[in-house]
């Protein structure tokens, strides 16, 4: 993309006010995650104050939990875990999904058939249940959680990539590349892939949001990494004491909503900016 078209892209993106808002929120969450240790130097697991302190109390602006841990610190440090898991699991899902989808879409025939049956299998399995089963069986840790989320999330990406590759493969510019003697790898990487990226990027940005939700749901069920403070864990731990301490579940929930919302908004903005169909209908 040259400078000019990136400016065009940015203008199209900025036209969507929600997307800009999303970007601002996301930047905030990112800052929080990056500088969590600066804002809250202590360990989020530390008992910072008395248990069950309501919000706005000393040493715990958003209240404390049953062990006197600072909710605000937990949220800041939880942002790291949430974003980290969201991004890495999406990257892993992309690696699996796009590879399989590209192979299926480009080669067609039995390769396509085999890959699509496999994909269908994974789409049929209720994905949250599978994630729960996988994490439970392989014991919760950051790695197993990321792997489980990736394993249940790749099929839509594979389908998307396959669809893109299939349609692009029959596009005339690809056929022109064939007739001008370019190699398969060059066709896949130089001709097709760059053109299939837009919808994949959009999906990926939405998938980060889904992954964050999934991680939080797993943690809520007690399937989080026991060494990582995460938002879902905080809500899960707060569930039983909601009568005594609403803030324990309220604020982490808000953090999740804002982050997921921001990612969705950005995703939509990307979609508007990258999807030429919409752009054309606007013009």
């Amino acid at each position: 993309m040259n400078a000019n078209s990136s400016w065009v892209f940015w203008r199209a993106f900025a036209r969507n006010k929600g997307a800009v808002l999303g970007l601002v929120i996301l930047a905030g969450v990112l800052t929080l995650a990056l500088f969590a240790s600066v804002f809250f130097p202590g360990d989020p697991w530390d008992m910072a104050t008395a248990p069950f302190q309501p919000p706005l109390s000393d040493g715990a602006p958003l209240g404390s939990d049953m062990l006197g841990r600072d909710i605000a610190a937990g949220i800041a440090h939880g942002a790291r875990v949430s974003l980290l898991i969201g991004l890495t699991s999406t990257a892993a899902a992309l690696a699996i999904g796009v590879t399989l989808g590209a192979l299926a879409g480009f080669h067609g025939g039995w390769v396509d058939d085999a890959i699509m049956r496999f994909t269908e299998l994974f789409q049929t399995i209720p994905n949250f249940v599978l994630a729960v089963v996988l994490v439970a069986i392989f014991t919760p840790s950051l790695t197993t959680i990321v792997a489980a989320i990736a394993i249940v999330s790749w099929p839509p990406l594979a389908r998307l990539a396959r669809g893109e590759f299939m349609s692009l493969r029959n596009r005339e510019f690809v056929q022109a590349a064939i007739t001008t003697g370019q190699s398969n790898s060059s066709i896949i990487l130089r001709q097709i892939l760059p053109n299939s990226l837009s919808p994949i990027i959009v999906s990926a940005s939405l998938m980060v949001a889904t992954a964050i939700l999934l991680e939080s749901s797993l943690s809520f069920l007690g399937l989080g990494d026991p060494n990582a403070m995460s938002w879902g864990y905080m809500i899960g731990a707060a569930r039983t004491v909601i009568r005594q301490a609403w803030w324990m579940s309220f604020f982490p929930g808000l953090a999740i909503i804002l982050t997921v919302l921001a990612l969705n908004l950005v995703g939509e903005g990307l979609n508007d900016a990258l999807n030429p169909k919409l752009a054309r209908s606007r013009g």
Partner: protein
Amino acid sequence: MTRPLPALPLRFQRAAAAGLLAAVLAIPALSGLTATPVLAQETPVKGGVLNSIVQPEPPTLMLGLNQQGPTQTVAGKIYQSLLTYDQKLNPMPSLAKSWTVSPDGLTYTFKLFENVTWHDGKPFTAKDVVFSTNVFLKEVHPRARAVFSRCESITAPDDYTVVFTLKEAFPAFLQSFEVSSAPMVPAHIYEGTDFRANPANATPIGTGPFKLKEWVKGSHIQLVRNDSYFKPGLPYLDGITFRVIPDAASRSLALESGQVQQTQYSDLEPFEVPRMKTHPNLAFSTKGYEFVAPMSWLEINHRVKPLDDKRFRKAIAYAIDRKFIRDKIWFGLGRIPTGPINSVVKFYDPKVTIYEPNLDKAKALLDEMGLKPDAKGVRATVKIMPMPYGETWTRLGEYLKQALGKVGIAVTLESTDAAGWSQRVANWDYEITTNFLYQYGDPALGVARTYISDNIRKGVLFTNTMGYSNPKVDALFAAGAREVDPAKRQTLYSEVQQILSDDLPVVWLLEMEFPTFLDKRVKNANTTAIGVNDTYEDVWLAAK
């Protein structure tokens, strides 16, 4: 939000120390009603149905075959053993009206009540006792097997006398006739059959004051009074209904709203307890668990450096605040232990080395070991694998991570599940874990097994999995198991408690308590060491 355990796992004691010495213990026999007189000032009324909770639903009510907590609570009303125990763990009559122990401590003679019948009308005799202890339980009940294997012979000189002759003296023998430890089963039904497959298991036949009327799986178990119970006029209640309520929140609601009048063990989440204690209609008690007397601790693998160094273990003990654990994690349930023996168990001695929270002492000990903090303040790294039995234990793990972190011991929490936990602990594949065991009223039954080196058995749970070995401790426990003179036993056990509290093979965390809530209308319940698991023959319901 979970129960520490859905079913209290059956922690049968493995191998207690062998006893050799004998002594005489004569217990004055009581006859007739065994009701403790505490609440007797009111006149009992007959009638009424008590509603309680059973959670989780037991697989069977045949107590000889299954001794999970819920099975005990329900089947304890159907089956009986020879004895029961008061809350100081002294034996009291149940099916045996009296008993004598020979001075050498080798012969135990029980006299049975003579008018006892099984629920099917057949008389209960010494033959049933011999069959139960010598045949049935030895076959199917590991804990009973360990005890009755100590018998040279078990005989019935007449229909109402049973004589147990031991190979070696074992004073804890008298603690082994609690209903779940040695339930009496009908010989005429089980003799010569495949015990586990006997169809009668579905319709349990005992001698107790209540009979099984109806069991709707997933809903409730209904017991009704046994009209031909051998104690005239008892039981008072028309029946007891145990409701299956799988959800914890619903259980507390059911108690709160008076739909059930009794909860026990882990029916309520610890965090519900403070709120429920203030309920005007409910009486709260942590008594009635003296027989099980659970003790929890940080189990430390002595095969791993630097955990083998007792200074390190002491540093851990100084680093943690057990009061915090009791108050914030268990919401006030439990007592802070001093040494290896639960304070409600016999021969407990508080005169031991005490570890109050003291970070400086902890750091000093670590310094002394040469474990200096690195740039990040870390002196050593250990892995803690919390017991996978629910949120409370998870929270404990989180607390430990923080508490130890403060003295420079970095903790990595390991997540595991019940099977994995069992496997890893049994095979010594852990660094630190949390654990709890029942003590069964006598150090020889439930304490020694954790610390004696004879019981270092790879692959077997609830043994000396730490790999702790101290010949002195071995000798003292062995002597204690054999010693028939209570005063001498006390001396032996006091010494072992002192040694252990200094060696600190494990770091004791909590003498766990279970909450029992009873509607104030329920009278005479929860009076013995087995509390809610007892027969309820004399429990009655006051009018509203």
